[in-house]
């Protein structure tokens, strides 16, 4: 078949080009000038500047053996999404809902308020609104009922504000009532962020318990070269896809 003959020709030319390239690399000071083009040989691609191929030796390098850390092990999150009052309310909620217990760290010990500031700051607007309005509502309630900020409530006072909204629910079916939605979501998020921290994992180890939370993490598999939809090569441009439910 004509195509197969052509492919054979290309392969032969490619092998010849490789052999020639190897000869040039072996000759010190050899010029990286491409040979004159011929019908049987495709033009060479651009070569890196300098006398050495850039990737030389990488595959032969020994494993580094470096023990890497997660940033939380040594650094704190710069929280900036919630305002000062909201942050104080969230910290109070963390202390109340997930205190340190039986040798396990509490939410404040694991940087949970700061992590949630980051997480909610990166979340869709609806989630952000639920959090901000929920934190504001709690503070307003505390002022109305106890004449103090939520940050300064006693455990008994805070419980009086929170407990009426606690619900039981099954996965994927969180409460949807306005305040119950927030209280149960923030409770769940505080627990998750705390129990998924390295401090919690270390505490499990120290207690001689199985360190759970390990699983198979999938990296992106052959990720697309373009994150955004764009016109396919050789086709006329079309409107960009709106998000589902637009």
């Amino acid at each position, binding site marked *: *078949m004509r*195509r197969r003959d052509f492919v054979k020709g290309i392969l032969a030319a490619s092998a010849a080009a490789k052999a020639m390239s190897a000869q040039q690399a072996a000759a010190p000071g050899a010029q990286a000038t491409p040979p004159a083009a011929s019908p049987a040989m495709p033009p060479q691609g651009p070569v890196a500047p300098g006398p050495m191929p850039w990737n030389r030796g990488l595959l032969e390098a020994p494993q580094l053996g470096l023990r890497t850390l*997660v940033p*939380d092990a040594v650094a704190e999150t710069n929280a900036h999404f919630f305002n000062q009052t909201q942050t104080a309310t969230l910290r109070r909620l963390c202390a*109340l*809902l997930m*205190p340190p*217990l*039986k040798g396990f760290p509490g939410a404040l010990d694991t940087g949970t308020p700061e*992590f949630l500031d980051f*997480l909610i700051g*990166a*979340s*869709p607007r609806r*989630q952000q609104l639920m959090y901000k309005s929920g934190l504001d509502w709690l503070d307003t309630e505390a002022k109305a009922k106890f004449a103090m900020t939520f940050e300064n409530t006693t455990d008994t006072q805070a419980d009086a504000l929170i*407990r009426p909204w*606690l619900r*039981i*629910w*099954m996965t*994927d*079916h*969180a409460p949807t009532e306005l305040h119950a939605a927030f209280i*149960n979501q923030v*409770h*769940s*998020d505080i627990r*998750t*962020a705390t129990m*998924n*921290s*390295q401090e*919690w*994992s270390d505490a499990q180890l120290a207690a001689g318990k199985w360190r759970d*939370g*390990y*699983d*198979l*993490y*999938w*990296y992106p*598999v*052959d990720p*697309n*070269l373009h*994150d955004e*939809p*764009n*016109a*396919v*090569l*050789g*086709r006329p441009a*079309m*409107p960009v*896809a*709106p998000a*589902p*439910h*637009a």
Partner: protein
Amino acid sequence: MSEETVDVLIIGSGHSGGMVAKILTEKGINCLMLNAGPVADPHKDAEVKPTYALPFRGFKQPGILPHVFQANEFNANTWVDEKEVPYTCDAEHPYNWVRVRLFGGRSLFWSRQSFRLSDYEFKGKTHDGYGDDWPISLKDLGPYYARVEEIFRVTGNQDGLPQYPDGNFIPDDSPWSTSMQRFAAAGKAKGVPVCKARSAQGVDGLASSVNLLLPDAVKTGKLKAIPNVVVRELSVDKNTGLVNEAHFVDRLSKREMSVKARVVVLAAGTLESTRLLLNSKLANSSGVMGHYLIDQVYGPGMVCSVPDARDRKGTREIMGGSGIIPRFRNIETKEKNFLRGYALNIYSNMGGVSPHYFAAYGAELQQKLDSYYGSTLSAGIMGEVLARYENHVSIDKVAVDAWDIPALRIQTKYTDNEFNMARDAVDAATAIAEGAGFEVLVKNYEPNPPGYSIHELGTCRMGDDPKTSVLNKWNQSHDIKNLFVVDGSSFVSAGWQNPTMTILSLAMRAAEHLAEQMRQGNV
């Protein structure tokens, strides 16, 4: 431009595509398989990590995969990105289209529940007057089920229930824990059967196209495959009316290419196969393509606690194991407020309990979590969704995917039949649990959005009448005889059963029919 024409072009590499490739290549037929995504290598593409080392501490990256409830931060990169391959639906009627485009498709990740449909599904209309019968019966598909069950190494018991057909199973001799025995006894007292589940063991637990089907095809030397190519449309020979070419785009470079084929088999998954045909404007003389989208109700259920397993007394003798309540409604009797039926998965759990089951926090919650640890038993519905013409998909007028291929618009919703069925299921499970002396902790009557079950079916239904169906009983297009659709889109009704065994059996049957037709020169 290649001059080659492949014998059979298979689009999709999941269970159905893998089965067709295996059958055809073993009969000496050359096949080319196209897959929209890459080949995944867990040794290269995945790594065991602690949750705390993930970028979002185990929370799914905000804003991604809003319709994939099954996604988490560990597996998020295995699902189809909804921005890359969007679809649209009405905001008040969301649909969870859960997709995998890795080579092997969703066969890489599934629950392994392995059931046959019964004639209560194949001949549903005959039984209760609703909808349409399939053009085949259990008797037609039985021999294929048996072969598929052998390949997939399905374990189970012979229960002798017509609505839960027996099969070619590896006997399940494992004893039930006393919690399961008590639940089963309470069910029996109410006339509700509780049986052993049926599950594909596969090899090393994997029951996928990539380890049970495609290796056999590869062994023949008759299968070639191209990953990372997204098929845009099919075209037909204007003289013969036969499909003869597939036009695809390279997923990474976006280069447009075409390949000629004598036969095309669509195995891209129910909605992707239908989307491709709708975009190609082919095989729809009936006008029903895209209609009768069905799935199964998931989400409603209940969780209870076994009192004598509390406070860390839940030994393996008391707790652990699973079972299933196969459909028991509308078999001998007739329910007042819903047609068809549901099954319930039952799990006796030796592990931790969700904090969501208690209206408590802090030390009080921890005390409950400690006390109830290893004592829960759950029941979750798998309910039949009725096939309705108005539940349908079409091509969206605006939205396109990352390769400018028009996206799908999905318009479907549940009705009182599904809601009433869900309520009945939760109440029935609750009554059995209470009858067993268990404490019910939580109940949920609300179904997850349609699509959640990942059992989307229909939209290219099979039938004897070309005016009311897209495919004939061999999964072959009524309009274009060298076009086959072998995934779940051929289903006429959904039943409550995980459809995988039925999809595989239909694909095997269709492939053998196709091979014979090719041998006779009819295709």
